[in-house]
């Protein structure tokens, strides 16, 4: 009888330690949806690129921003922004739902820390990519976004579900691999932001969301 109470105490301790230091309401489903948006975005971008130049699209991300003119670049940036905004909104809404189900507040000190520590490497990476564009190193933008996003995930993983760490490492690895395949940035983006998000989102969904 007594040992039952001790068992309860231990699980209460574990529960409080993780709930107070990590934001565990991160929704796996939002990862899956973010991946789907990314794949759709990549398909649209691919279509645009193909329409502009059927034989040359592999040169996209080569050192040749003049090649397609800024009109196309602007369109691609708009596509990317739409994908990012949709993914973030979905993430917020689904995490909010998951949090309110478990009686947790979404905007607490744990989620604040999560967002801050995610944004530090990401903002540095974003600025760095703008600099790459400034000097015309368009080809390195895709690898840089993947690597910095991966670093952001690794950094943020200390404040949320640990699985995010492995997703971050996967992003860093394909980011580095993609530096050797300049011109195929779109494929690596689709693989990373599309496929990886879906795989890890699904893993997290089955591991955490389904149980509760």
């Amino acid at each position: 009888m007594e040992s039952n109470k001790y068992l309860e105490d231990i699980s209460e301790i574990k529960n409080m330690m993780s709930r107070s230091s990590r934001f565990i309401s991160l929704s796996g489903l939002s990862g899956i949806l973010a991946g789907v948006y990314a794949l759709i975005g990549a398909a649209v971008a691919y279509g645009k690129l193909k329409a502009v130049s059927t034989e040359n699209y592999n040169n996209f991300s080569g050192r040749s921003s003049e090649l397609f003119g800024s009109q196309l670049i602007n369109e691609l940036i708009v596509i990317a922004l739409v994908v990012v905004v949709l993914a973030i909104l979905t993430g917020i809404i689904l995490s909010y739902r998951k949090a309110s189900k478990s009686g947790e507040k979404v905007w607490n000190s744990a989620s604040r820390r999560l967002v801050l520590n995610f944004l530090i490497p990401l903002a540095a990476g974003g600025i760095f990519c703008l600099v790459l564009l400034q000097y015309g190193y368009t080809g390195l933008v895709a690898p840089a976004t993947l690597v910095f996003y991966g670093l952001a995930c690794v950094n943020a993983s200390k404040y949320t579900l640990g699985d995010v760490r492995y997703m971050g490492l996967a992003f860093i690895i394909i980011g580095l691999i993609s530096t050797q395949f300049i011109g195929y940035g779109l494929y690596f983006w689709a693989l990373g932001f599309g496929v990886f998000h879906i795989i890890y989102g699904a893993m997290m969904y089955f591991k955490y969301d389904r149980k509760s």
Partner: protein
Amino acid sequence: MSLIDNINKAFDHRIRLGIMSILMVNDYADFNMLKELLGATDGNLASHTKALEKEDYIKVEKQFIGRKPNTRYSTTPLGKKEFQKHIDALEKLIGK
């Protein structure tokens, strides 16, 4: 019966256990954060933090954020040590 000796009576309550658990993994926590996480009422939480403070297991700092008073709590080295002992004793008792 040395095992039971390490079970610390000061931690023998769900709220106190919760306070110590939260403070073990966070540098500090303020009153509202504890209240939210533990689902305790103001008075209830205040009496438990006071008890832990009296044992010198937690430290209380009162300060102002802008104009709002803010009370934040952190563990003392003694509190950390005692709570760790308590956890170890619990784990031994359940035969882990």
